[in-house]
């Protein structure tokens, strides 16, 4: 993983990485917005600047902030809500106005979220990307979609649900 995306490259003990995971509250628990490294990533199709690439060997999706022009197309198309636009004042301040995703903490043995997740929802595994196959991506989103007439923002599936699907 040559691309350094979030602050997780800064692995000194004093400075912990900044979270690139989003949480959405649901009736029961939360949904975790984290990149699923889709087989045919929608963000890659949407990117107008060549900023999103997929590693030819590992199939991991990578974002190159140097090329990003902040057009929001990838945010618009990701069905998992896994892409964030770094704000100037946010903790990902090193790249304001650029799209960022979870980079899998390349410089750590286990991703920090997995180290600290007490429920075992988030787990680190050194598998190839392409984790969410096309059909499964569509189905997972369909099953989880919960927009009702209320004001609920539609949730994304949890990671456990992903594994079962």
């Amino acid at each position, binding site marked *: 993983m040559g691309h350094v995306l979030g602050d997780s490259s800064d692995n000194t003990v004093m400075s912990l990485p900044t979270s690139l995971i989003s949480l959405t509250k649901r009736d029961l628990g939360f949904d975790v917005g984290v990149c699923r490294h889709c087989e045919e990533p929608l963000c890659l199709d*949407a990117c*107008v600047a060549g900023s999103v690439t997929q590693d030819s060997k590992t199939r991991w999706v990578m974002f190159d902030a140097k090329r990003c022009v902040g*057009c*929001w*197309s990838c*945010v*618009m198309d990701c069905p998992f809500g896994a892409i964030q636009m770094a704000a100037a004042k946010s903790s990902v301040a090193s790249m304001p106005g650029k799209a960022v995703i979870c980079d899998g903490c390349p410089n750590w043995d286990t991703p920090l979220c997995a180290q600290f997740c007490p429920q075992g929802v988030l787990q680190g595994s050194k598998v190839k990307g392409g984790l969410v196959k096309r059909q499964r991506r*569509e189905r997972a989103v369909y099953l989880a979609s919960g927009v009702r*007439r209320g*004001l609920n923002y539609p949730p994304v599936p949890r990671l456990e649900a992903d594994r079962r699907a």
Partner: protein
Amino acid sequence: MPKYVVIGDGVAGLSALKALRAIDSEGDAAIVSAEGLVPYSKVLLIPYIANKISEEKLNMVARDFYASNHVEVLLGARAAALDASAQRVFLSDGGELRFQKLLIASGGDPTLPSQWKEVPGILGLRTLADARCIRAGAHAGKRIVISGGGLVAVKLAAALTEVGIHAELIVSSTQILSQAADYEGALMVQRRLEEAGATITPNASIAAVDVGPAGVRGVSLKNGKEIPCQLLVYCKGVTPNTQFMGSLVPAGAPIAVDSRMRSAFPDIYAAGDVAMASEVSRQQMTCAALWPHATVQGRIAGRNMAGQAAIYRGSLVRNAMEICGLPFISMGIINEQSGPDWDVKITRLSGSYCKLVYRGEALVGAVLIKDAVTIAGRLQAEIRKAAAAHASSN
């Protein structure tokens, strides 16, 4: 005789070449490139005009892309005529190409009134040449008037405003973004633009253009107002480049394609801004000229041309942009129609705006501003799910 011929080196054409090369690395392929440049991203022209990116960053592929993929390039040529039954394309430089599979990805040209076409300083925004001209003029202090209130007009105005260049928008409808936003959403965008320094005149249209020896000197509106300017950028939509097809398609109309990107003519495919495919929220054939559609349509066409049966899941009209720090995303049907079936849910929360449009129980569209944009991808999935359910119940 090349097996594959692609007309147009935009994102749809390139995406098709990549897809068919992944399946068929041998078959001869040729691409017709009207501008004769390294393929570049048209969407990046606006950040380029605002000096946010350099010219070489516009390139979509490496310079040796065609050579390393064994693709013959016909530079500076346009398709001039097509004989569908004899499977031949005639080029503007007198050349002729026979094909087994043809992809038409010739895009569109800005709709510019014919009497203005040759006037220096009046131009559309579609090519690198246009962008170079606007960029040079803008940074040299020329006054710019933008005719139109659509996405290109608004994005250009925002990009110029952000770097301190004054932009004046002349909009013929009552609101900007009349195709992409509801009234309230458009008003939020308009206010943001005006706060940042742009001037927007709705309900106005240009009655006459004052042309001097050096080019355009100003415009006068139908209400009598006169605005001096040295650049008039005309952003009033795009006409599909199908003139070379003669009587095969009506003048200025896009090419209708099926779910495998096939046109009505055997072995002729179309993708990108020139193609009209089925759209999920409206459930009708739509020319949804948008980057992700061009990418995916090109890929589907390429795979089918190379013998695979790839199916396009349908377009979903949508747009994303940031207007002077204000994120904006809209998708599907943005204005409810009259009738008991239609319903809207609007949420306003600390400056953000979320409008969801329903037809029956089905979500068919949304307008999202500021923080609400983060749910856009999930809403898209919801719209597609509702459309699939609707299609299977019929």
